[in-house]
């Protein structure tokens, strides 16, 4: 070792990873060139490492170096989310650590293989969203309306909820499929001073908690604690009980003392490796690395600004599988500047695709990719 001061400069943090783990104010300083570069690099990776994606790219005469301008991103071959229902589309060479499954609400379960780096970047997308949308606080307690880690298995939704514990002190309030509202109430009323509670869970269980509060003739005022409520996962099998956003906002205000801006829905699906957060205006902002577009069912071309189409995602954070997804959702993408001041695209989901006709070209893509996986 030297006796004088020596400076050793270590580098090696990829710019995408830097964005995920360290990026701040990135919704206000959008850099389309960086997004293009990240997606181009991911496309090149999947063309090289995924047999299915290689075949799909060859059929569409696609190579990653065709991605020269942001508009070229619409040429990236898409894998139907249905393809994951047949077989996990693992990239060769990746060291898979977890087979993540969907809930299978609408039929067969999807299986998505994630390796360590892909999972790490998933957590990075959550950290990035927390920094920009929920304030970067240290003294925070996550209250998860989901089962503890030893009960979650491979189900992606509950597994990803359980990762809250990696980031913050966390308590879980579902065991053996039952929500313990009394325990949640007790925790909320006895939290240490200065600790911000963040309730995370599906809207149906949050609704159950509100019902329980009504039955018990109890209410809470979480405004002084600057609490956040994050809903995720939708109503799933309880879709018939779902309520509109205004009704939900009102009830959160009346029973928990929180304004609508403290209630945020976050979006993810098992095939997507990024969590999409809502801002204080309850708008879902597309993070800077993710490309989201709404496509016409007939030819998969992009629909006009603000029109409804099949939502497609180009997510460069996944390395163990190609996260270039044609989803089963109809939705819209807007590039108008949101009332919150952030300049990123904003997306919304209208509803799930219901019929073969609606799926159109998307169904054909699924068939193609499924044939590919079985070869």
């Amino acid at each position, binding site marked *: *070792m*030297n*006796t*004088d*001061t*020596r*400076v*050793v*400069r*270590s*580098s*090696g*943090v*990829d710019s995408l*990873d*830097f964005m995920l*783990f*360290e990026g701040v104010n990135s919704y206000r300083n959008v850099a389309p060139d960086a997004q293009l570069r990240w997606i181009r690099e991911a496309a090149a990776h999947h063309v090289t490492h995924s047999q299915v994606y290689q075949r799909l790219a060859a059929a569409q005469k696609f190579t990653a170096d065709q991605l020269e301008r942001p508009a070229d991103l619409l040429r990236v071959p898409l894998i139907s989310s249905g393809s994951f229902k047949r077989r996990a589309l693992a990239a060769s060479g990746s060291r898979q*650590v*977890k087979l993540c499954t969907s809930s299978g609400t609408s039929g067969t379960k999807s299986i998505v293989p994630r390796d*360590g*780096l892909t*999972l*790490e970047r998933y*957590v*990075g997308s959550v*950290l990035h969203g927390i920094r920009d949308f929920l304030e*970067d*606080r*240290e*003294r925070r307690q996550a209250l998860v309306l989901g089962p503890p*880690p*030893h009960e979650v298995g491979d189900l992606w939704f509950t597994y990803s909820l359980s*990762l809250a*514990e*990696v*980031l913050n*002190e*966390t308590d879980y309030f579902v065991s053996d499929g039952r929500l313990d509202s009394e325990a949640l109430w007790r925790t909320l009323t006895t939290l240490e001073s*200065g600790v911000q509670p963040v309730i995370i869970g599906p809207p149906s269980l949050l609704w159950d908690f509100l019902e329980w509060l009504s039955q018990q003739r109890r209410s809470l005022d979480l405004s002084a604690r600057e609490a956040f409520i994050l809903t995720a996962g939708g109503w799933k099998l309880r879709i018939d009980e779902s309520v509109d956003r205004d009704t939900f906002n009102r009830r959160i205000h009346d029973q928990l003392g929180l304004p609508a801006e403290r209630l945020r829905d976050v979006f993810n699906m098992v095939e997507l490796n990024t969590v999409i957060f809502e801002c204080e205006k309850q708008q879902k902002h597309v993070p800077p690395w993710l490309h989201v577009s709404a496509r016409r069912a007939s030819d998969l071309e992009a629909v006009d600004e603000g029109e409804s189409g099949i939502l497609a995602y180009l997510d460069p954070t996944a390395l163990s599988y190609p996260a270039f997804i044609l989803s089963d959702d109809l939705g819209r993408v807007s590039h108008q500047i949101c009332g919150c001041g952030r300049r990123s695209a904003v997306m919304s989901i209208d509803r799930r695709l219901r019929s073969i006709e609606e799926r159109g070209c998307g169904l054909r893509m699924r068939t193609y990719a499924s044939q590919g996986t079985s070869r």
Partner: protein
Amino acid sequence: MTISHRRVTYRNGRGQEIVGVLSVPDDRRWHGVVYLVPGFERQLYHYGPVSESFCRHGFATLRTDLTNHRGASEGEMRHFTLASAADDMTSVVSQLTAAGEPVVVVPSSLSARSAVRALAEHQLASGLVLLLPVVDVDYTVKRASVSQWNLDKWRDGTVTDPTTLVLIVEHEIEANFARAAIEEGWCGIDSVRSEIAQIKAPVVAICARQDDWVRAEDVEQALSAPGAGPRQVVILESTSHQLTKNPIAVRLLIESLLTTIEQIAELDARPIVHLEFEQVVSTVRRERRWAKSKYHDLSEEESASVSTQGSSQGVHP
């Protein structure tokens, strides 16, 4: 490879109990202890994955919670001062060395400032590795204080009652922190520089280029005085003071740390194997569970291969 974890306790100069966890691998390749000291508002469980990495590379670690701070040790956070942290480190290191254990002290952030004085005064450690070290206390407090509070409010007489509570990084502490920092000479880079120059053991500082709370050039300046022992500064590019939330930066940090400590311990370099994602997750969960029991329950739920032992006073691995 088996790692045994043990709850240990010490007493500082003020008689307060310091609680820690000693982790010893069965294939230990150095008879000394790597002593990981949390920074301000951090607790020993935050260093679980770092400790795990050290153990997997043959090093025993000790982690303690600071007194007058968050965590399992005694005292209320509002009484925290740089001197109270220095007292903790002096007490622990002197008890370790009295038991024949060489110690490399690895303090983080604000604790690094305290460690410099403790080691300059007592010369007890075999090495000092400063992580993201605070060298300009005024600058860091200004940057870290969510309430815009700073030490000048004590200097200019805006605050005169040392029991007044001020908010620093989401924690209320007494303004006595500021009084003591100013009156006891903890402020200014020159004071750190002269203290580092007195330390006879090797001193290495690892800092982050994008750190909003600590300027890398200040750290270089603090280590620039001709010293009694070897000096080195490692600057990690593309990361910040929130380094623990960046797993890639953490891997770079662990590589730098292991290499540094192998050099201090005069050991041959071994290939570095990082924890997998799921290992990090299970370590974090385990550590949070241990913290809830104040480290009385060090049982392993997820890994049957790791044995645990009971509680004891002091360290006799």
